[in-house]
């Protein structure tokens, strides 16, 4: 499974961020989402969606080996993570999120809820 972002369909509503934080933390707080939306305005007038493509660079960079590949998804082991945030620095898409309320970073678990609720079909979960 892979989460595909289709920038050209995005309207910047950020429902994906809301549902991501709710699914993973049961909090009303889109800043805890593991994906981001950039508005490219005034020019060229488009949105860019940044989502995790499970490239694994976070796992490679982790000094304590706390990020594991499980069924094609890189997941953070909270027990093993020391909160050094090195993975946040190396993430090429800047979707490893460091949040001031948390010791460990936030990472996409490929749950697919964002794709289910995107009103624009700008996020799609594909095999």
């Amino acid at each position, binding site marked *: 499974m892979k989460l595909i972002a289709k920038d050209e369909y995005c*309207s910047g509503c950020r429902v994906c961020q809301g549902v991501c934080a709710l699914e993973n933390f049961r909090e*009303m707080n889109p800043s805890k989402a593991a994906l981001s939306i950039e508005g490219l305005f*005034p020019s060229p007038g488009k949105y860019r969606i940044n989502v995790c493509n499970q490239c694994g660079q976070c796992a490679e960079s982790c000094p304590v080996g706390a990020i594991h590949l499980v069924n094609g998804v890189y997941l953070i082991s909270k027990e093993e993570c020391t909160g050094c945030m090195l993975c946040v620095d190396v993430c090429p898409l800047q979707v490893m999120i460091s949040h001031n309320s948390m010791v460990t970073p936030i990472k996409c678990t490929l749950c697919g809820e964002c794709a289910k609720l995107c009103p624009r079909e700008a996020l799609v979960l594909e095999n």
Partner: protein
Amino acid sequence: MINGYAGTILRVDLSNGVVTKQALPEDLVNDYVGGRGFIAKMLYEELPPDTDPLGEENMVIIATGPMSAHFLPASGKTHFGSKSPATGGYGDSNVGGHFGPALKYAGYDVLILTGKAQQPSYLFIEDETVEIRPADQFWGQGTNTVEKMFKEELGEDFQIITIGPAGEKLVKFACIGHDFGRQAGRTGIAAVFGSKNLKAVAVKGTGSIPVFDIEALYKKGKQAFEHVFNKPGFKGWVPEGTAGITNWVNMVGAFPTRNFQTSYADFHEQINGKAIVEKIKITDKGCFFCPTPCGKYGKAKTTSGSAFVEGPEFESIALLGGNLMLTSIEEVAYANYVCDELGLDSISAGVVVSWVLECYEKGIINATNIGREVKFGDLDSIVYLLNIIAKREGMGDLLAEGVKISSEKLGHDTERFAIQVKGLEWTGYECRNAPGMMLSYMTSDIGAHHARSWVLGHDIAGAGKSVHDLIAGGGETKKLSKAEVRGKSKVVMDSQHLRPLFDVLGICRLQFMEIGFEVEHYEELFYLITGKQRSWQELLQVSEKIWHLTRCINVREVKGYGRNYDYPPRRFYEEPIPDGPNEGNYITKEEIDLMLDEYYEARGWDKNGIPKQETIDRFGLSSLVQSRES
């Protein structure tokens, strides 16, 4: 902690830099709920006597509601309030986008700005950190330019509200810009920002908002979004957004044309929603958590200039298109961009410019007065006028006062076609054969604005037709007979309670009005968010109370206020519509008075439109009113 709310009122005194964080009072929440309710209560209670709208003592109140920033469709509305420089009375305006949610996630339901900064400044808010910072590099810049500068300096996660040059120059219809093309446009609150030397507010919030039942809200919220996806309006509305109503408004002879000289434009198909999609649109652009984006962002190329611009939405199409006789969507969009960048409300600016053009046509103003030849349909003339207004250059200094004051000073019977009520310019619906809508404009608390009550559909098609039904219904232009003026009070009052209730709750009414998302969902969502069982009917009663309170504010703040502030311009009751579907139709002065008599009676106001004591008592406003009187 109060479920649904961030829990704090943030007060910033720009004169001395003192920042105060006050716990949100439980009784304020219970009695006034949020948004517009908070604003009306605080303005009534806290505005010093005889406040000059552009003086240090005036307040700007920026308020979210209990449902703002929560998990339901289109929960991103933010309400602004102040003593209006345009009307001298109660002023408010709201904006979509993402600012209010960011403010709330930063921990604040309400931001209150008072005093005056010593130098051009902006307010920086990042969660607990609140700082007044110098804004020299932003001063004089246009709204989109400033927003881009802020994003580069502070980062994408900051949400920005900013004024343009017009706000700095205290133009009385200056607007606040946000999110590269959305505006809190009405009642001149950007001029209050300018008077306080405040260019912008930048906010980033990373906190969580407490929710009564987060598990149930998550489940219900998902169902709510999926429910909207299946509404006919979902697919019908999105392609053109608000611009999709243009054809229908023109077909029923309600489209402002040539400074409201007539109500039908034969070039409407060149400036409608379809034209936007075909000629300028790049992307749909949505507000916070909105599944049905009204925003149509694109690029307009004209001989006067080219620009990226959001819109034009219906109001700008009406007031800059039909009303100024701009006959291509590119020209309308470019005029819209000029308004946005200068920080001018495109509605009021359209009406002021159309009034100037009619004065010019009639020979009351000439090229020497105004600085060049100007005419309807000429984009260069319009861009020139917008610029001299925003910079208060030459005659622009007078025009910047709005069409009421400009016409009073110019004389020559130009008040007759100065299209305003209470000092606020009229919006995009010509009403000489739409009595309910006419009464809506006349009695709107902020002046001639459609968002308080919109009953044009009822006037034309009777009860029960949603906006989506009207647009989808099609039809042909035909001659319309004169409408009945009696019995309009109830439908207008119901709308005056219903539409502003969304401004109280802090969410967008369009999901309900245009898409057909049902009221019962809001009742349930309100409960899951706040833990308070309040029926929709009960919330409507709060909205009704607020309506009386804003009237009390106007009565107190505007000397001699009463019935004489509720009349439309004389054009609307002295001149029959000259052509189009409503040719020959108009509403007489006697009929206007009859509608007002009926309305005041139904409201519990006296014949001069002043709320009676028994009405103030009935809505539980006595102690508030007495506390100020003593």
